[in-house]
């Protein structure tokens, strides 16, 4: 995973709450077995609408998504994060994220910054006044900046550290391998085992 410190990209105002992962990427695109190339699938059904925000020239190359609360609800599909990433998004700002989506994003280097609902509105207004304007995401200071407007965002400290350092989760966990082995040794005998198969 690449390190993330500071990034500046085109802001996209998505004036919707409850953007579920079926909207971010419909199930039909989940048949693919690759981990990249999902850019065409992002918001696939909304993108059929010529008025949809990403179909407008100013926002076509969006990199920082500003959405309403309860972003990423529903299915655990990490494809939602891959689709946002493949399209070019580096960060999503929202007043509230669904837990699994936020976890998935953190694993893939997509920043999820939690901002207040009033700051969401301020950012929407500021972007719409100047379509195509860039938002700077500063992960060190935890601030999103658009011109004179500076908005603090919250992000889980551990995720932030991993993103800043570009660290791989499995590698981190394997530092505790001795503890895993010790735990395994004291598990009770009645615990489930899938093998050998019993019918």
């Amino acid at each position, binding site marked *: 995973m690449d390190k993330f410190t500071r990034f500046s990209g085109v802001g996209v105002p998505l004036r919707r709450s409850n953007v579920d992962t079926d909207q971010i990427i419909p199930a039909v695109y989940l*048949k693919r077995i690759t981990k990249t190339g999902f850019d065409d699938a992002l918001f696939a059904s909304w993108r059929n609408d010529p008025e949809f925000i990403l179909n407008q020239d100013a926002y076509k190359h969006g990199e920082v998504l500003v959405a309403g609360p309860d972003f990423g609800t529903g299915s655990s599909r990490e494809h939602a994060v891959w689709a946002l990433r493949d399209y070019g998004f580096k960060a999503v700002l929202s007043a509230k994220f669904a837990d699994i989506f936020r976890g998935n994003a953190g694993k893939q280097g997509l920043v999820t910054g939690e901002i207040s609902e009033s700051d969401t509105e301020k950012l929407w207004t500021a972007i719409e006044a100047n379509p195509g304007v860039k938002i700077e995401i500063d992960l060190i200071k935890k601030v999103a900046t658009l011109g004179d407007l500076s908005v603090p965002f919250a992000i889980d400290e551990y995720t932030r550290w991993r993103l800043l350092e570009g660290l791989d989760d499995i590698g981190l966990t394997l530092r505790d391998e001795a503890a895993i082995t010790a*735990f*395994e040794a004291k*598990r009770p005998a009645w615990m489930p085992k899938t*093998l050998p198969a019993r019918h």
Partner: protein
Amino acid sequence: MTNQPLTLAEKVWNDHLVAKGENGAPDLLFIDLHLIHEVTSPQAFDGLRLAGRSIRRPDLTIATEDHNTPTVDIDKPIADPTSRTQIEALRYNAKEFGIRIHSLGDVEQGIVHVVGPQLGLTMPGITVVCGDSHTSTHGAFGALAIGIGTSEVEHVLATQTLPLKPFKTMAINVEGTLRKGVTAKDIILAVIAKIGTGGGQGYVLEYRGSAIRSLSMEARMTICNMSIEAGARAGMVAPDEITFEYLKGRAHAPQGKDWEDAVEYWKSLPTDDGATFDAEVFLDANILDPFVTWGTNPGQGVSLNDVVPAPSSFADPNENAAAQRALEYMDLVPGTKMKDIKVDTVFLGSCTNSRIEDLRAAAAIINGKKKSDHVRMLVVPGSARVRLQAEQEGLDQIFKDFGAEWRFAGCSMCLGMNPDQLAPGERAASTSNRNFEGRQGKGARTHLVSPLVAAATAIRGTLSAPSDLEEN
């Protein structure tokens, strides 16, 4: 420390702690059971291959095919090449990494959340993960069961652990006795309507109270299944005699001395008297009606006896805007009686409501009745075993005589990945868990209902309760 009263969730958490997180790092938890399916796993296996890693505990891992499998002609090659490739990738990965797999046509194949409990692999006090948000289903046994993404699937395959931030706990107290025609599905739809799709965020829910205690394991699974629809990471029910009775004698349930040891431990799991929850919610089961959704998220639900709400009835501007958009998408007018809404398709299935009890309940209502002419009904058992059981009981014949389609097991129309989809603009009464825009097919409209409401709706052609049939 030892005398501090704990909740069920806290006990399971503490007993799985491999390493305590320091300086804001998450705790590392051991995972007892990892369920795998074709959609969220191929990229995880590729990740392992790229890093030269192996699977730590194939003996705690099991795979089945469900999301993207056909429910007809399962003896023929899968027609869609992309779907076929995905299924073949799972088979190939299972073989290469030594994982037990139940493929299409196998008697143990089925929806991953139906298969685990059915085999007796899902037990009280264990940790369960799966690359599927409805993993919360397994919480019905008093397991801590969490839906994860593909990176986490890879992580669990490699380490059999998962780094997790401690959750808050929320008690969902449901007291009283459900009236006739009201089910577990109505309880959970009412809970979600009450706390909202984000209301459970950051929490593990524990469903408690006399109404929960009297429910069967199948019904408890229905409730825990939809915990994710309230935004929660997991939902749980404390194990009791009903749980033990369900498990005893199942293929992978503990036997002999192991069974005794297990039951002794399981009896220590229920939340201690005096333990505190971070939040509490109360629901009166005595006055609950059958519940249905009118909108495009599972929190947008009302009593079946109610009307389509006006967006202006929501004070919150986000909810108000969401309601307006939902009504437009659903093509509904505020004030319309829910029972006047005409449906085209009835779907009985999904990890929420496809177990034998669900099929029996629906069959009992349609038995000897005539299906509404304009309604198509699809019955998709949760597993091959459920299908066989239903056939032994003659339920398949009841569904077929009624004019319903009797299908093979899988996720099917719940998420419309396979050909079981609604046409644009089509409206369904569905026993599944999500009414999102386009979930059951592009432009499709979904009303979430219980199996009883699904059955009555198939007879009358409009959203209906079984009691509406008696009034005729």
